[in-house]
């Protein structure tokens, strides 16, 4: 359950990170998240698209319709310079949290791999 709530907080950071690696569309983003999380995190399409919408209105991402050879026409998203800035802030936030937890867990005797 905590994974879920973390997901709630991290959703825009994850989307921006995926888009920084290359333009993508909703269905593909969900697949990437599933695969990268070792099938631990499964996003619901019903939650993802509205969030994408909001990120678009924030000016972090923009959309375009594209039909690659042999595939169907899809709505692709790309990260904007403003989105890159936002991601950088997110990254710092998450890294800080990450370092904090690592240091706490280190004191508690866990090795970094477990974290």
């Amino acid at each position, binding site marked *: *359950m*905590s994974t*879920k*709530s973390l*997901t*709630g907080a991290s*959703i825009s950071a994850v989307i921006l990170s995926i888009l920084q690696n290359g333009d993508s*569309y*909703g*269905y593909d983003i969900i697949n990437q998240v599933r695969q990268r999380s070792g099938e631990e995190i499964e996003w*619901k*399409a*019903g*939650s993802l*698209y*509205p*969030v994408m*919408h*909001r990120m678009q*209105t*924030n000016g972090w991402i923009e959309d375009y319709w594209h039909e690659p050879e042999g595939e*169907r*026409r*899809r*709505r692709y998203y790309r990260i904007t310079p403003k989105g890159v800035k936002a991601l950088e802030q997110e990254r710092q936030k998450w890294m800080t949290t990450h370092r904090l937890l690592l240091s706490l867990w280190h004191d508690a005797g866990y090795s970094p791999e477990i974290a």
Partner: protein
Amino acid sequence: MESKREWSFDMDRAIETWRQFMSSNPSIRSSDLEELEIHLRDEWESLVSSGMNPEKAFEEARNDLGNISDLADAYDDVNLEKIFWKGQTRSEMDILKTTAGNYLKSAWRNVIRHKGYSTLNISGLALALASALTIGLFIRHSLSYDDYHERADDTYRIVMDRGFPGENSGQSFVTTGLADVIRSEWAGAEHITQMRGTYSTEQVMTVDQVHFMMSGVLEVDENFPDVFSLSFIEGSGPASLDAPRSMLLTESTAQLFFGDEDATGRTIRVDATADYTVTAVVKDPPANTHLPFNVLIRGYTEPLQLSWNSIGNYTYIVLPAEQEASRLSKFLTDRYEKDNPGAIGSFSLQPIRDIHLASGVQDDYTPQGDSRYLLIFGSIGILILVLACINYVNLATARADRRVREVGVRKVIGASGAQLRRQFLLESLLMTLLSVPFALLGAAVALPRINSLAGESLEFSMLMDPVMWAVLTGLLLIVSLGAGFYPAVLMARKNPVEVFAGSRSYGRARITLRQILVGTQVAIAFALIAITLVIAGQLEFIRGNRLGFDAEQIVTLMPRGWSEAQFTAFQSEITSNSAVQSAATGLPMGLGWRYYGWTQTLPEDGSEVDLEEMPIGVGFVETMGLELLEGRTFSEIDLNSGKPPLIVSSSYAEVVGNGSSVVGTEMAFGNGGQIVGVVRDFRNSSYTDSKNITVLRLDAEMTRFAVVKLTSQQILEGLQAMRRAWTKISPDRPMNYQFLDERIQAQYVEEIRFGSIFNIFSGLSIVIASLGLFGLAALTARQRDKEIAIRKSQGASAMNILALLVKEFLVVVFAGIVMSMPLVWIYSQEWLSGFNEHIRLDGSILLTSALICLTFVATAVIFRSLRAARANPVEALSWE
């Protein structure tokens, strides 16, 4: 064959149906829908290629997208954000419309999705709003008395205080001839007018040989229209009372007398003695006046001699400035003291707008209101609103766990706390708004009933004024904020973690808050029930209370202008009939009428005693049934003896006699005289001190008032005998009589009104509290369906379960009752102390109230709990 069946599923048609369904919701735009469709197709293909049945794969993929309303909500929230952050693409108005529209849509969905819950809430709110509106109307009406007069702020009634003991010691029936004294000796009055009459006293108006018994007849001087605002319909305007024998009618009286014909110029005979000519017709005075009338007749054609001890006129004055009022009061008081050295007496000027709520006199033309009652009703209105708000809060928080998923989803997709708070506040506003039509309807239906019960004249149309609209709007905001604030904050605070964990929403802390709220409701309901019982008990006590005389079958008469001999003739004629027991002259008792008062200094210690003196005739003590404790009553022989005899009340004997008998002692005060007897104290009014120090003086010439005692089974016959005898002496004047017991009852009209209104609203508040408790019991029972089911499957009986559910409520109910008891006690004592004699406050009233309260709560709670307790455990457990 197998593959053919598989492919019989038509993907394109399924998609088309889905598209149509989704596009029915305006929150989902076409580009979004296209994106969702592509996603659906991708997912479907992926599932089919992994070997799933196409139809099942479609269902799976579709469910993965989520249901339409959740999706729509999610898009709504995101779109709203867009409006807030990137508003430049739309006009302000569009933004406002869309924002409000989206919130409203969401709120409305919640209202209609939960009909039972909404019905409970809306009916509770509607009842509370209807009560608050009615009370608001009552207060506004009471505060508006006499403010319609053009010179309302500069107009005063002259009030005299002759030092009579008691709370309402003033009198507005003041010195005869006072108006002329002010005119000639005190410069500075703009207008003065004097009048006499009592609204309830009926006079005979003869129009073309038809007799009408009219109440509301005021005898006025020509200055009446200068002081009080009148709207003339017919006739000669403000000058219409200038001529002697002129008369002014209200519109409805003119209609009664003459139908649609013109009234001006017509002649009306008053009391079969004098003809008056109608010179004008005015609009009926509004309901908010202390001086209503049907007929104004011109009197005061002769100048009045100043006579300080003769009262009988209301005097009103218009002053150019406020400070003149104190100057005039001082002048009148000084003038009185100069003419009456040693006598108690002071004058004051009372603004006419204060008369209705703070009359402070006992001889008002019509019974007036009391500002204390206004305060009480205002408090009840607020308490009722508090009850309704608590209902809302309780029901909303009890339902919180059922909405926690909705909140969680919204949060995850980015709804902010502020947005959620707005959403929930809007929901409570919507609920309150929905209750307004019902509240207005309720008020419209209730007003005539309240009017007839409470003797008020409130009209629904009074609601249609800007002040009441402002009040209504204010109430709406206060109630929806009061009701919605806590649930909104609570909901918005919900951690999305709980959403997915599916955790129960009620923690320890909230149960405590709910208990406080329910306890408060019970405390309010209990307090209102208990106070209702105290009031009812006291009113019953007043009505049945020993007056010290026997008011039954006593008829009061006003044989104005009769000589002593004429009255004696009347007396001997009627008493020869067995239907009449006795008759005597004298001021009727129990009505708070005073004749004369002075202060006596006791020779022993020099302390002062306030005395009242009443002139009575021979036989008065017997007729009124006063109890003679010592000495004798007056007889015919006393009429010719040198020293005027006196009879005193037992309090006088106690205070002045100081242990020894006062019979035989002489009184050097007032007009002097010798005490011949002592009667038991009687009550002259509900307000006078319990010690009633009165001196009854034999004065056979004072024939202005008389009392006649009839035989109980022959009332009608007795009245006929009286009328026959009356006609012999005053053939032109009809006999005007009233039954004393009825008049005494009429004095309590304000208390009785108060009791009736209090009854209505305390009843309503209990209904509102019960509605809320019923809903709360229902929700908590449902939340615990599984717990109950498990307990039942473990062998608990329906009674065990019931006891479990009811126990929790009972603890809170008892706590509420105990909390409110001291306040009830203090308030009741306070209210009762306003009466000289009152019921003793004891535990039985509190116990009865507690029982009534418990019955209501138990009915509400047990009713629903029983259903939960009886339910089949299998159903509850097989829910998910």
